[in-house]
């Protein structure tokens, strides 16, 4: 089962995640992609969501997948925020999930928020130029927070994101975990050190230089991180 990233990252990555799902299904695996509440085609909007709700959505989707396929073994694949949420669910359901793939996970929620805020300060103007400007505040009666890359990030969601800490989950991570990194990341190095030092888990951490599919692909429209897709497929099958 594939867990999406947040907001604009989800839209940008949709093509790659579909390709991953087709690769896996071609290899004989049932695959479920789904949208969290308030995201994609699902009901609601982003102002009505929270991370705890999205974790429950992952659990509901797992139940649905089991019900549709009758399969007793399940792997969770998550990209960016989806990876972090997948890890949280996997830990909470252990031994309900057999293996876990964390693709460029959000390791430190505070750093992720800073990254989102920084990206949102560079905005396109009417004539197509990119300029720096302050974040756009949202009305407090509509959940507050900011507009981030075209999506509302409410104050409540920002608080939850800030508390995310993948490193803290490592002692409980599944033995069969693959961490795939498209590029060196400071926080992922921290994760790697913790994972490497832990006796409890034996994860596979791999850096595979590839196109970061969650970033606005222009002008590489349609490009896909083929090496990562192939590696995940190979590892799972």
């Amino acid at each position, binding site marked *: 089962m594939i867990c999406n990233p947040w907001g*604009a990252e989800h*839209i940008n990555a949709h093509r790659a995640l579909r390709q991953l799902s087709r690769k896996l299904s071609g290899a004989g695996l049932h695959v479920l992609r789904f949208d969290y509440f308030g995201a994609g085609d699902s009901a609601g*909007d982003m102002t009505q969501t929270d991370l705890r709700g999205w974790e429950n959505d992952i659990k509901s989707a797992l139940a649905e997948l089991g019900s549709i396929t009758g399969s007793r073994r399940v792997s969770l694949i998550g990209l960016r925020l989806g990876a972090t949420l997948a890890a949280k669910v996997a830990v909470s359901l252990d031994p309900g999930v057999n293996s876990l793939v964390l693709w460029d996970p959000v390791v430190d929620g505070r750093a992720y928020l800073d990254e989102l805020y920084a990206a949102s300060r560079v905005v396109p103007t*009417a004539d*197509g130029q990119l300029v720096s400007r302050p974040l756009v505040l949202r009305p407090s009666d509509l959940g507050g927070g900011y507009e981030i890359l075209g999506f509302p990030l409410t104050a409540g969601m920002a608080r939850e994101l800030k508390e995310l800490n993948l490193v803290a989950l490592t002692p409980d991570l599944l033995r069969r975990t693959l961490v795939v990194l498209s590029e060196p990341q400071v926080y992922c190095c921290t994760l790697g050190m913790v994972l490497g030092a832990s006796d409890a888990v034996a994860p596979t951490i791999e850096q595979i230089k590839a196109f970061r599919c969650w970033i606005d692909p222009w002008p590489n429209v349609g490009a896909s991180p083929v090496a990562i897709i192939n590696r995940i497929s190979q590892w799972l099958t």
Partner: protein
Amino acid sequence: MSGGTNERAIIFGAEKSLIGIVTQPLPVPSGERPAVVILNTGIIYRIGHNRMYVALARTLAEAGHMVLRFDMSGIGDSDNRNDGLGPLDANLADIRDAIDWLAATLRVRRVVLVGLCSGADHAILFAGSDCRVAGVVLIDPNLPTHGPGYFGRRMLRWRTWTNFFSGKGLFWSFLRRKFVRTIEITREDEGVQWQNPISNSQLLHAFQESAKVGIQMLAIFTGGSRDAHKVLMNLVQRKGNERLFRLKYFDRNDHTFTFEVDRNRLSDEMMQWLRQTGF
């Protein structure tokens, strides 16, 4: 399902390869009111930039319109077609498949096509070819750079010929551009060169055909350019055709409607236009 609307996923097309989401008002209206079909922008899948088409579809459905937003072949969750059509023809065939599905399944008789950028181009190129299209909402469409009789008029200008013999003007600048680009694309670090696959004459014909068969049009242009009015008026030419067009400039908008206030304005503008045109 939310409020007074209902949403469901559909699979359609001859090969059942196209995927879309239908948003219906509750109770389901009769087939008299046009349904709205929202087309992809580039390769962004059916929810649109910033998920704008999801919100738009729900707003339109709450106002009583059936809405279909779908992925054209090879985009989002839809598979490629296997009928050998080229990309543009495949896109236009996909739109026909979508309208056929609405007609066969929901008894829709008329549709309004909505598109941004390439979606707007597809909407206008398709519109005149199918009598079920009653209106189009074109957001930042490509416009023909020159209208009918353009070259003939230029040939009659004295300046055209003085430019030609002095190495200036459009002819020579065209050759220079072509020559320079030929050199540039041989460089190893050259990025992808994007060219609009739709020709000027195709666009020109599409706009004229649309006006000829009386299709209502809302055209919205983001950014600061205000040239569209002149171009559109040149295209329609015939007296009385002006009533088919509503032209709006969203001066402060960026092309992909990054901000909520701009998306809300788009939604309001569309709602107002639909009401005023009797849709």
